[in-house]
């Protein structure tokens, strides 16, 4: 006890508090600006960590990460462009709510849900770290394959108006991920001799193009149709969210936070997958599923709890097994190694003080996010509440510079531009963009797991139905697809009955 108290007093230093506030503000601003990702934000602060001790370094990185994930929802709600892929699901309900003049409610719901899930995730990390990591260790290639397939099916269903469009979009994403070196043999595929694409099409430029640049083109098209629209930000930020309204969705919040925790603990799947899975589950179990996509507070609660539930949990495989679950924890892994700490089970016994310090900073970062979220929203809104004609050229410049800054490469900028044009065409054709990105991100994991499983089983597909975990995922895939097909048929039959009555 005395030991813990001494760690707490060592952690509550002015330096750490300032670092957490600065990191949270930085993460929130970058997360809120479409095109600038949390990964970019975390990567940018890495050089600063050279001058800090391990706990201070992790405090800075964690606060940027958490607030960045939340920050993405601000632009998703106010301008209908997700600041980060993880907030793409939040946009589905947040933006319609803002259009109805209830932006304040939506923003507060996003903030409270994020903080709630963050706390759940922190507790999960502390209480369940070893147990969940043990379970995740049981995932072999076959289990990973089924997990990715299940994630893709769910994303396809949730993000699209039609199953076929969603799955086709996922396949487009998977196809784009083929352009790279083969993960088993290292052979170049579809690279046409170019060195630039040997490591694949760069993800962040593609994200910025598909989400930000295409949105600018769409907005410009709407602007030319309607003339000048003064404010980009939807009105009604002063609409208040009552505590009663928040607690009404407590079961959804708990369920979504736990989904986030579970997904976060599994290597490979990130906040975006957790947000879409939580959204899908909330829609399935909701009393008012028809409100989802039209501006449902429950939808926002589910997405935000889902994506922030991942934050603490992604540290489970990182700290206990030394396995980074996504690009952000991979950066954290690098930061810890730079500090002379190799993440893994031994850290818990040899560097217990650092682990406890990290746990404490997790809670400090959550609290800071709540305080800053309440204060900063008003000012962040002002950043976004400028005339479209001025804001979009500035966003265009930031997208160009942000894309260039990742690798100091003009090739990345070219990829972003092309992705922007393709995204514009896809959006006009009502083709969902989110499954393309998720397919693209999960493609390498799917391919590696699939090939590893086939090699292990000497080509037998039976491996995908051999373990209880794969059977559960297979069952879930069949149930999910059947449910949506059945629902579609039911809707058609009801439509037919209505027509015949008329």
């Amino acid at each position, binding site marked *: 006890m005395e030991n813990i108290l001494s760690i707490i007093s060592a952690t509550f230093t002015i330096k750490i508090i300032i670092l957490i506030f600065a990191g949270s503000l930085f993460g929130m601003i970058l997360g809120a600006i479409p095109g600038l990702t949390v990964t970019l934000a975390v990567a*940018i602060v890495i*050089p600063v960590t050279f001058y800090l001790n391990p706990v201070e370094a992790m405090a800075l990185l964690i606060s940027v990460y958490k607030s960045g994930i939340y920050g993405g929802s601000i632009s998703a709600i106010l301008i209908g462009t997700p600041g980060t892929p993880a907030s793409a699901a939040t946009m589905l309900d947040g933006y319609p709510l803002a259009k109805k003049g209830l932006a304040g409610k939506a923003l507060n719901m996003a903030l409270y849900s994020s903080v709630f899930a963050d706390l759940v995730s922190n507790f999960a990390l502390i209480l369940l770290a070893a147990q969940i990591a043990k379970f995740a260790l049981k995932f072999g290639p076959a289990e990973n394959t089924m997990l990715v397939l299940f994630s893709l099916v769910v994303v396809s269903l949730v993000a699209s108006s*039609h199953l*076929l*469009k969603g*799955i*086709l979009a996922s*396949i*487009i994403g998977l*196809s784009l991920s*083929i352009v790279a070196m*083969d993960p*088993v*043999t290292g*052979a*170049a*595929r*579809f*690279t046409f001799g170019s060195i630039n694409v040997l490591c694949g099409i760069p993800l962040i430029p593609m994200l910025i193009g598909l989400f930000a*640049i295409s949105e*600018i*083109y769409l907005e*410009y*098209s709407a*602007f*030319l*149709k309607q003339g*000048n629209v003064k404010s980009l930000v939807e009105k009604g930020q002063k609409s208040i969210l009552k505590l009663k309204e928040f607690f009404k969705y407590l079961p959804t919040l708990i369920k979504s936070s736990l989904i986030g925790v579970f997904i976060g603990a599994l290597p490979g799947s990130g906040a975006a997958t957790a947000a879409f899975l939580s959204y899908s589950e909330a829609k399935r179990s909701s009393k008012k599923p028809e409100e989802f996509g039209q501006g449902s507070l429950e939808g926002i609660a589910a997405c935000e709890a889902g994506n922030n539930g991942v934050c603490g949990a992604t540290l489970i495989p990182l700290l206990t097994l030394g396995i980074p679950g996504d690009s952000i924890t991979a950066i954290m892994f690098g930061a810890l190694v730079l500090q002379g700490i190799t993440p893994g089970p031994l850290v818990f016994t040899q560097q217990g003080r650092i682990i406890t310090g990290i746990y404490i900073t997790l809670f400090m970062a959550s609290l800071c996010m709540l305080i800053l979220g309440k204060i900063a929203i008003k000012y962040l809104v002002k950043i976004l509440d400028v*005339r*479209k*004609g*001025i804001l*979009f*050229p*500035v966003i*265009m*410049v*930031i997208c*160009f*510079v942000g894309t*260039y*800054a990742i690798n*100091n490469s*003009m090739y990345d*900028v*070219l990829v972003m*531009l092309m992705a*922007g*044009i393709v995204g*514009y065409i896809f959006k*006009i*054709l*009502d083709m969902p963009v989110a499954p393309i990105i998720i397919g693209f991100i999960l493609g390498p994991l799917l*391919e590696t797991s*699939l*090939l590893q499983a*086939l*090699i292990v089983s*000497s*080509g037998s597909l039976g491996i995908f139905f051999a373990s209880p975990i794969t059977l559960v995922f297979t069952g879930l895939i069949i149930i999910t697809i059947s449910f949506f097909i059945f629902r579609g048929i039911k809707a058609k039959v009801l439509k037919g009955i209505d027509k015949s009555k008329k």
Partner: protein
Amino acid sequence: MKINGLDKRITISLSNIQAGLILAGLFLAAVILVQWCVPVTRSYLTSPQLYPYVVLISGTILSLLFTYVFKRNRYELDLTIWPLVLGSVLYYLCMMFFGFLISTFILMFYFLFCWKIKNKKIIILTAILTPAIVYLVFTVFLRVSLPLGRLFR
């Protein structure tokens, strides 16, 4: 393609059949290209061609299914946005040759003109402040180098 005389909008009417066929064509072309663009190994299990074939053939089939299921839908692709697309491409090319500061200063005028901003004060301030602030934040605070341009390298 049609040009609407009233509001001078340029649009292409595209049906889902056309869109699906274009997609199917692209997938099919990629399937054919696999044998030239992806090397072969002796074992089919470790062959780099296996996964691309599975994904691309699935894509071709789904695209054809898409044309059938959504055959009735039509969309208007708005090409009136060409000045902004052209501006983006010009910005990219300018940045390569003249670097970040000059190209951003010049192209900001063009972008603001596209968005029909008429207030001269706002135009000049935005064109000067945007590159200046972005430059300051990225190069001074974040220590990220911005494009210098081939002309000044």
